[in-house]
């Protein structure tokens, strides 16, 4: 876990270091936009660091598109 946490910190330090100037000049709307992106990112970081088996983005896609796509593939394979 410490190793994965170090990876996260390293990546954040890199991103913040390169964007340092831009982050200082951000307007209120920009800050709101970036905060909106931080929410899913924080969730993914927790999943990555803890190796948690929590619902993820592909699980949602699988929930929505999984049944129809598998039905079509099943039909084409001759199983349905």
């Amino acid at each position, binding site marked *: 876990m410490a190793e994965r946490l170090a990876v996260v910190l390293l*990546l954040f330090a890199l991103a913040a270091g390169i964007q340092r100037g831009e982050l200082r000049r*951000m307007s209120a*709307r920009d800050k709101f*936009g970036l905060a909106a*992106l931080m929410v899913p990112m924080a969730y993914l970081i927790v999943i990555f660091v803890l190796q948690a088996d929590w619902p*993820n983005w592909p699980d949602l896609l699988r929930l929505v*598109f999984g049944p*129809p796509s*598998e039905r079509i593939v099943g039909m084409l394979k001759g199983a349905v």
Partner: protein
Amino acid sequence: MNKETISAGQLAALIISTVVGSGIVYIPNPLTAIARQHAWMSMIAAYLFGWAVLCCLVYMHRHMRGEASFFSHIRKMVGRPLAAAAALILICLLLFAVPAIVAGIANFFTSVMMKETPAYVFSSTSLIVCALTVRAGLEVMARMFVLLAGIMLAVSLAVLLLATPGYHLEYLLPLAPQSVKPLLHAFLVAAGFPFGEVLLFCVLLPYVNAAKPGSLVRKLFGSFAIAGAMMTVSVLCTILAFGPAAGSFQYSLYRLASEIQIAEIIQRIESVIGITMILGSYMKATVYLYILNILVAECLGLSDKRLSVFPLMLICIFLSLTMFDNPADFYTQVYVIWPFMVVAVGCSLILALTLATWVKYRNAEKEGGA
């Protein structure tokens, strides 16, 4: 800040890099596993499907001139709420595509070359390079990819040609398939990945500076034909080299390169094709990350598009590290769910937007005439 523009030729190079990009690595294996020696027929049919999608894009581009972005064009066509929904669908597609491409790079390294190295090393470094390229801008990216796409095509073609002594024409027989179902299944896979993915280029069309519209159409279809030919030839060569076993080699082009041995001078050139594969995936991930960034920055109303590049890079890195549980999961998501998403959702969206554009301009012309 001035809007970046690229030439029609540069857009053509971007199309070749994305269609051939990671497809040349991943497509021959599932297609030959599904349709065996007839996979090349499905490939041609899928190319024609992609061609139809490209026709829709070209039609929309005619009515998009002078628009600041694709988002502003569709906002005029269908209104703000529906335009936001369309952008959201494209964002959803890209939030799967970019991490999946990067996870593919990591899978390739960890399964073939560097088995003990953690996947995050490859995912992080790949996406950092992609993000830095995106931040450099579309013009820089396009200029660089013209050269890299040329190298990728030349090396891939050289490998396919050098492997000629190992080809067996009889592996293509019988030519007529016993059932059409495997062909349709392989068609669905290839129509979604990589040919249908050309729909994502709708976002880049307003950035093309084409003085002569005919030149853009010629270059777009020309590049798409080159990409289609390259993909079909690689599938065909895989079948000719491995026959019924082609479906069991995960990275068939890499495997094909390892078989090449000419007079003890040219041998073990799979590392060269390995580099080409990484190059292709890098170009594709970069173009898609650029498109994703444009859409997200516009939806959030950011003052500077570059602000969202690194947050999106971090999201994609962590998605790529958490989205696939095992190789079977990768197969299901990339070859079953993803093609369906592209064909049923993405391409239907493009068709709907093309129809909306047609109706809008038809009515405008009628009113103008009356």
